[in-house]
Structure formats: C-alpha cells, structure tokens
C-alpha cells in the first residue's frame, strides 16, 4: 500500500493547518498561559523546593498541565468535522483513511510539539533550565505529544456534545495534571495520591520530562515507553471510531 503523502495527505495537512490558524485564539492562549504562570509561580516553587529543582518542577508541571488542556484543540478539530458533516464528505473521496488521519493529525501533532518546545525554550532562555541531553528530551517530548494527540482525538471522536467535551478537557486536564504531580510535587502529596498517580498520563509525562532534564536515561525511556503505549491504545480507539464515520444512517 502506498500513501500519497505528496498529494492528498499534504493537501489535507495544509487544509487543516489553515483551519487551525483561521481561529488562532485557542492556540495563542495555550502557548502564552504557561509562560505567564511559570514566571509568576517560579519564586514560590524555588522557595518550597529549596533550590534549582523548583525550576524543573514549575516548567515541567506547567508544560504538562497546559499540554493536557491543549487536548481541547485536538479534540475540537475532530468534533467540528462531525458537526460540519465534513468528515463523511472526506470519507466519500478516494483518499485512504490513513491519509485522512495523517492529514488531520500532522498539524495537531506539530502544534503539541511546538507548545512544548516554546515552554522548554522559555525555561532555558529566561530561567536557565539546563538540558543535559537534547535527544533524550526530544524523545520525551515526542512520546508525550503522541499520547496527547491520541487522547485528544479519542475524546473528540466519542464525545456526544461540545459541552461534554469541554467538561472532559477542563476537569480531566486539571485532574490528570494534579494526579501526575504537575501542580504539586508527588512527594508532597498524601500516600493515597502516590498509589493512583501512575493511572494518570500526566504522571508518566512528568517522569519522562523530569528524567530527561536530570539526565536519568532509564527512567526517561521507561516513562516514554508507557506514553507510547498510551498513544497506541488511544490512537487505535480513535482510528476505529473515526473510520466508521458519522453518516446520517449511523445515527438512526
């Protein structure tokens, strides 16, 4: 099977990038908010954590929380196609399902990676965040971006309404961030929180990113592998659902 990425896939990716940029509000918001909060909250984290660990915690914590909140951009992209009925219109063309999915996913993945790059770059440039191994960090960022993409697509594919989607993103984003130790370091949370933390993708994202920033290769690889597994599982569910479409007859 040959994917026509130079033609159909590229046309879809361009089209979806254009759609995202036509309404840039959510993108700008998810890029700027973590930078503001990192700047304002860093002194608090430095004091609480007695040193440079505070910078890593505030940068990775805000990155994880706002990247979870950025799931709304990915999911809204899928959900909007359902509302406009355009997804089934695309399915009626000669394009393969994989081409449709790649065309839809590529701009969203680029956005999720860009968001992390901006936050980490800001941390490095403004607050002296050290990156001992850029490749290890790139692996953690890539694995987390893929997990986010798949989770966002799944929510966008299965939600029954926009308000249901909003609730899932807002409450889910905060809950998974907090559970994963993004807001308060896990060591400061009660014992029961430690037990449930690994059920949050945010926990594995924090582990991967913090591991990469402190040079812990084994820990980063293990956490990245878990994130990749989450991406695969959620991606399979999203792919199965969107490939069935939402034609009128399906809703009867």
């Amino acid at each position, binding site marked *: 099977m040959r994917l026509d990425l130079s033609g159909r896939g590229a046309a879809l990716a361009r089209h979806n990038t254009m759609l995202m940029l036509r309404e840039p509000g959510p993108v700008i918001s998810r890029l700027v908010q973590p930078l503001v909060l990192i700047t304002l909250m860093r002194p608090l984290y430095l004091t609480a954590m007695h040193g440079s660990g505070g910078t890593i915690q505030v940068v990775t914590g805000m990155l994880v929380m706002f990247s979870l909140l950025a799931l709304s951009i990915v999911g809204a992209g899928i959900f909007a196609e359902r509302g406009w009925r355009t997804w089934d219109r695309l399915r009626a063309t000669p394009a393969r399902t994989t081409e449709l999915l790649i065309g839809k996913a590529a701009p969203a993945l680029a956005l999720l990676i860009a968001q992390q790059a901006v936050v980490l770059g800001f941390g490095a440039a403004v607050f002296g965040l050290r990156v001992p191994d850029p490749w290890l960090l790139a692996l953690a960022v890539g694995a987390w971006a893929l997990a986010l993409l798949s989770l966002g697509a799944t929510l966008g594919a299965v939600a029954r309404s926009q308000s249901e989607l909003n609730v899932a993103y807002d409450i889910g984003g905060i809950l998974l961030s907090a559970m994963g130790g993004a807001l308060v370091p896990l060591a400061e949370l009660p014992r029961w929180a430690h037990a449930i933390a690994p059920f949050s993708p945010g926990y594995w994202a924090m582990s991967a990113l913090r591991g990469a920033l402190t040079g812990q290769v084994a820990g980063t690889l293990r956490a990245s592998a878990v994130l990749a597994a989450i991406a695969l599982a959620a991606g399979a569910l999203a792919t199965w659902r969107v490939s069935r479409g939402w*034609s009128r007859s399906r809703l009867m």
Partner: protein
Amino acid sequence: MHSECMTTGLVAAGLVKTYQGTRALDGFTLTVAPGEIVGLTGRNGAGKTTFVEVVTGLVRPDAGQVRICGVDALARPRAARALIGVSPQELALYPAATVAEHLRLFGALAGLRRAALRQAAADIAEQMQLTDVLAKPTGLLSGGQRKRTQAATAMITQRPLLLLDEPTVGADPDSRSSLLAVVKARAEAGAAVLYTTHYLPELAELGARTVIADKGRILDAA
C-alpha cells in the same frame, strides 16, 4: 475514464440495510446507464440517502451488490469512490474555508495537481457561477451559493458517476438553473447521474428517468 464506464454506469441489486429493526433498504435495485440521468424521488425515509451512502461506501449493506463501471464497490470501495462525484443531502462545508479552498481541497483529493487543479477549479467555478465569491468563506455565503459550492466540489473532476442528493434544497432559482445546466452537460458528456429530489419539475427539466422509492424499495419507474 475506466473502459467499462462507456457501457455500464451504476448497477445496484438487492440491497438490504437494517438499522435497529428498521429496514432502510429492502431489496433496493437500481441501474443508471452512462449518459442517463435517473431522478430518484420518494417520501422522507424511503431509503434514498441510505442508498447514496451505500454506493459511496459510507454504509455497508447487509446484503446485495453494487457495481460502478464494473468495479465491485463493496469489495473495492476505494477504487469505486475514485469513479464517483458525490454531493450529500446536507451541507458539508468548512465555514472558515473559502470557496476556492474547498475546490482546491476536493480537487486534490480527487487526484488533480498544480495547473490541472487550478484550471479545473476555475472552470467549475465559472460553470456554477461562483467566480465572484471564490475568496469568500463559505460561512458568509447565501444558502444557494453554499449548495452550488458543495455541488462544485463533487463535479470538479469528470467522474463517470455523479450522485447528487437533493442538491437544490434551499437554493434560489438562479442557483437551481446553473446547477441543472451543469448536470445536464455532464450527462451529455457520458456521466451516469443519480439525482434525488422531491421536486418533480426538476426531473422533467433534466429529462430524467423518474424512479420512485418507498420503504426501502423501488416502487415504480416512469
């Protein structure tokens, strides 16, 4: 064009589709020859849209077969879709994308590239009287202009089978006239056209063979 498209257009036989106990299609059989316009009419719920969805591969039937230019559409749905231009019953447009962007996207998905794509977009825009609104987002168009845009995305390439599902609902008389003229021209050029509608005068204007559907079956052909 696929060689068999000169002799066979759409052949659908014995289609059955049941949703939660309701038979949307109940032995639906219909043939559209190359160069022929078949006007499919009938009450709401007669199975017209389900039939279009089955032919385009969006819905898989419980039984029956569909061939387009001799290609088994159920066994080779992607190959079949490459032979179809479809305009669904309900509007399926991106409100923030312009008419030109829609034409470029659907032209590219149909396999057109670069100069051929630009030329095809310009041609269909002119035929459908959309040239003046090419740069407008579809969210700002009138109902008739949106309908014409949707039909234009279906007809940007010369496909051997055209499926137009109530393409003129909500369209003004000018939009209707320009759309009917293009549909007639496509049939004269050899396309098999399936046109669903509730407006019988349109079928007369198209010179279509009228077929009536009811409860998932073809009742009568005039």
